[in-house]
Each structure stands twice: as C-alpha cells, then as structure tokens.
C-alpha cells in the first residue's frame, strides 16, 4: 500500500504483514467486551465501597449479568477451537515457547516501555514475551474461572462448604491477577505511544513491515538470521 504525503508529490510504500485472522480479531473483541462487564460485575461483590451496587435489585441484575458474560467469556476459546483448531494449537505452542531472549526482554522491558528509552530489545517471535505471558495468564485464568465459577454457580448447597470456600478464594485470587494484567494490557495496547501498531493489528489484522522488523525480528527474519543479527549487533555495540 502506498501513502501520498499531504502537500507533496512524494509517496511512501508501506508493506503490511498479516498477523491475525478475521476470526481471531472478532473473538478478541468479543472476549474484551465480555471481560470488562464480567470484571466490573465481579468487582461489585469484591470491593466494600461498591456495596450500594451489590444491594437489592441492582445486585440481583449484576449477578445475572456476571453469569451471562461469563458464558460469553468461556465460549470464545471453545468457538476458536472449533472453527480454527490448527491455528489455535499453533498459537498455544507459540505462547508456551520461551527462550533466553525472554529473560533479556524482561530485563529491558522497564527502560523500554516504562521509561520510553529507545534501546535495542532482543529479537522476538510473532508474540513478544509480554504478550505470551499475558496469553498464558489468560489461558490459566479461563480454566480457573471455569473450574471455580461453574461449581459455585450450579453446585452451591450440594458441595461441601469447605470446598466452596476454597473455590471463592481461588476465584478472587485469579480475578486479582487477570484484572491487573488486563489493566497493563490495555495500557500497552491502547495508550502507550510506542505500541500503536498493536491496536492497528487487532483492528485490521496487519502490522507494518518496519514494525515487524523492529518488534518481532524472529517472526520477520526467521530465528537463525534474527539471532545472527542480534549477536552481531551486540558485538558491534561492545566495541
């Protein structure tokens, strides 16, 4: 795609690389818009200062909404597994693959993302370390929420109270982890100025070639070449 610069005859060509399928983007947004009301309706029972919303009819409606959105939230991975199982397995495999570059990435993440220093980051595959950690937490969260929430929903009164009490605590602990993670994910994807293309990719399914080269070198160049380039770059930097 070429973009003509305003007020000039110059044009620049941008090469876009597909990152997500249409279904992945659609399900991502369904997941997002299920998670937000799910978290907020859960938060009403979580925080004492939200008590007026937990009381009376408001509380009854919010608890019902929590259940409906929970089904939507839990249904997303099932739909994904049914419609694009190979793609899902590929992503899952990628989420669970970590290398020495991930430690270096984590080390460099604070000055890079928080302080905004334009330093070099180690090469990353299609999903960087942060994205993969987020995905792993989300997968664990979905399993824990399902395994604790469904018995709390349908088996209250017929399961031992001690077990119910454990489930309530696990449900809340998982909520703390996933909601904190969601806040960070939202900030990096929507607010952070250096990551504007992540939002574009979830809207249009593509990232620019230059973005892929800088942020996902292993995906763009392949693992061998990305590693060579990184090592060469590091060696030059030391001299």
């Amino acid at each position: 795609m070429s973009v003509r610069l305003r007020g000039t005859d110059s044009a620049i060509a941008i090469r876009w690389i597909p990152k997500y399928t249409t279904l992945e983007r659609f399900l991502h947004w369904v997941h997002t818009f299920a998670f937000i009301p799910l978290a907020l309706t859960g938060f009403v029972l979580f925080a004492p200062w939200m008590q007026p919303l937990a009381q009376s009819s408001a509380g009854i409606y919010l608890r019902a909404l929590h259940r409906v959105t929970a089904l939507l939230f839990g249904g997303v991975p099932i739909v994904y597994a049914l419609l694009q199982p190979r793609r899902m397995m590929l992503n899952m495999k990628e989420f669970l693959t970590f290398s020495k570059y991930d430690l270096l990435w984590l080390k460099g993440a604070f000055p890079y993302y928080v302080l905004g220093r334009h330093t070099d980051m180690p090469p990353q595959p299609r999903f960087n370390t942060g994205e993969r950690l987020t995905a792993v937490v989300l997968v664990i969260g979905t399993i824990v929420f399902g395994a604790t929430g469904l018995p709390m929903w349908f088996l209250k009164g017929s399961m031992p109270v001690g077990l119910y009490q454990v489930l309530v605590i696990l449900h809340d602990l998982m909520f703390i982890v996933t909601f904190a993670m969601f806040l960070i994910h939202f900030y990096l994807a929507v607010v952070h100025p250096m990551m504007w293309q992540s939002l574009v990719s979830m809207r249009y399914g593509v990232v620019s070639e230059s973005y892929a080269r800088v942020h996902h070198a292993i995906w763009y160049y392949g693992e061998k070449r990305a590693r060579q380039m990184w090592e060469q770059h590091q060696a030059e930097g030391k001299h």
Partner: protein
Amino acid sequence: MTMDRRSFLKLSGAGLGAVFLDSAAVIPALGAEKRLAMLYDNSKCIGCRACQMACKQWNKLGPVSTDPQHLYESPGDLTPDAWTLIGLAEYKVNDRRNWLFINKGCMHCGNPACVAVCPTSALKKQPNGLVTYDRGLCNGCGYCTQFCPFHVPRLQVSSQFAGVAKSSKCTFCQDRVANNLRPFCIQSCPAGALDWGDRGTMIEQAKSRVEALKAGDFPQANLYGENTLGGLGRLYVLLAPPTAYSLPQDPGFPFAATLWKKVVQPAGEVAFGAVLLGLLAAFFVVRRNVHMEEVE
C-alpha cells in the same frame, strides 16, 4: 395469637410508622443496649413444636413438605420456610435411651461469619446482639449459607441459572424485639423451655440449671454457647455432650472467611490501585521521553 392491650397499641404504632417510612426503617436502629439472648432448656422441652408453628405464623412462612425419612423432625432440616425447627436425637443417659430435643435456628453469634461475608449488609450485627436480616437488601449471593459454622441460613432459589435467590434465617423476630416484645416462639412455648432476656441473666440462669441437672440424673448436663464465637445469642442447656445433638463441639470463625475478607480482597484492591497509579506515572514518563519520529 393472643396479645395484651399494651402490646397491641405498641405494634399498631410501629405498623403506622412503617407505612410512612422507607423499608430501611422497618428495622429500627438499635442503640447501645445490653445484649439479649434466648435460652433453650432441653430438660424442659416436650418437643411439641409450638415454637416452630409460632415462627411460621409470625414470619408468614409457607408450608414445607415433610420427609418420611425423618421420624419426628418435620421438616427434616431448616429450610427457607422453616427458620426454627425442633430436632431430635437419641442418646443413652444413665443406660437409658433418651430423646434429646433441640431448638434449631440462627445462633446469633457474637462474631458472626455470615455478617463478615455478606457483601450487601443485608445481614447486620446489632448492638443488642441480634443478627438482623433485611430481605430487601439481599441479592441472593448465598455466601452466608456457605460460611455459617452452624449451617443455618438457607437460600430460596427462584432461578438457578440467573442466580435469583434470597437468603433466610431466624431473626429472633427482629421487628418484635425492636418493639420491646419477645420473639414469638418464646411466647408460644407451653413448657417454659424457652426464655428471653439480658444475656448475662440468661447465662446465670442457665448455669444454675446446669448445676441442678448435674446434681440430679444428668451428670453430663452443660451450657452451650457462653463463649463460642464471641458468645452465642441462642444459649442451650443440654443434657448430653453437644455432639449428641449434632452441634459442633468447638466451632470457630471460619479461617477462609478471614483469609478472604481480611487478606485477599484488601490485597486485591491495593494491587489494582498500585497498578493504576504505576501506569499513570509511566504514561507521563513515557510521554516525556518518547520521540514519536523514532517510533516504528
């Protein structure tokens, strides 16, 4: 229901007041009064279940199907429509098989777990010792049913799928007590097995009764609830060890409730606050340091 003229006038006044006040005012704020308690004396109980009937009548509770598996207890357990129940246990005392009756219902704990886990304040601990319940505030979460050490509150479920429900339990006839009347079950007891009044007086009364029973045919007689869970509001004079009545020997405040409400949830709020503040600070730092012309 019989009522003297003074009681009738008091109740009429309260009823008129309730017409002009909102639902929250139906349970009047109970001031710094002395703690009240019910005393149930097993040695006097004849198991007539008048207390059960009185509870249903005053609180307008619906009928409950009986369970043929239970020979005497009817219904077999507390239900959303049976807040008071005469339970039955068989126990050998002095080589004689005895029937032990027990008046079951909310224990009105001094330190109630149900109140600690209630997210709506529908359940409240009042200064006079009552654990009151405001049905209008209840959202049916059912946490009270899962954390009560005595397994007393019951959930009336209208829709399992949508989670529409209301909790229920004995309130010691909170509306009557607020109008200086005794709980209706106590008024109905023909055997004098139920008594009501200042908790200290009830304990003294119970202790002297226990001594008398011990000196007689019941060496295992004991007082249940004096110091349990901050002191129970429903005290029992028992003829046999508590376990013979299926009562927990030494119930404690559920550890899970403390962990959940005092550690996990406050820690979560701190974590969310810290993350939000951190991100806000990071946003201003990044905005100052990032040169957009260098961003890919």
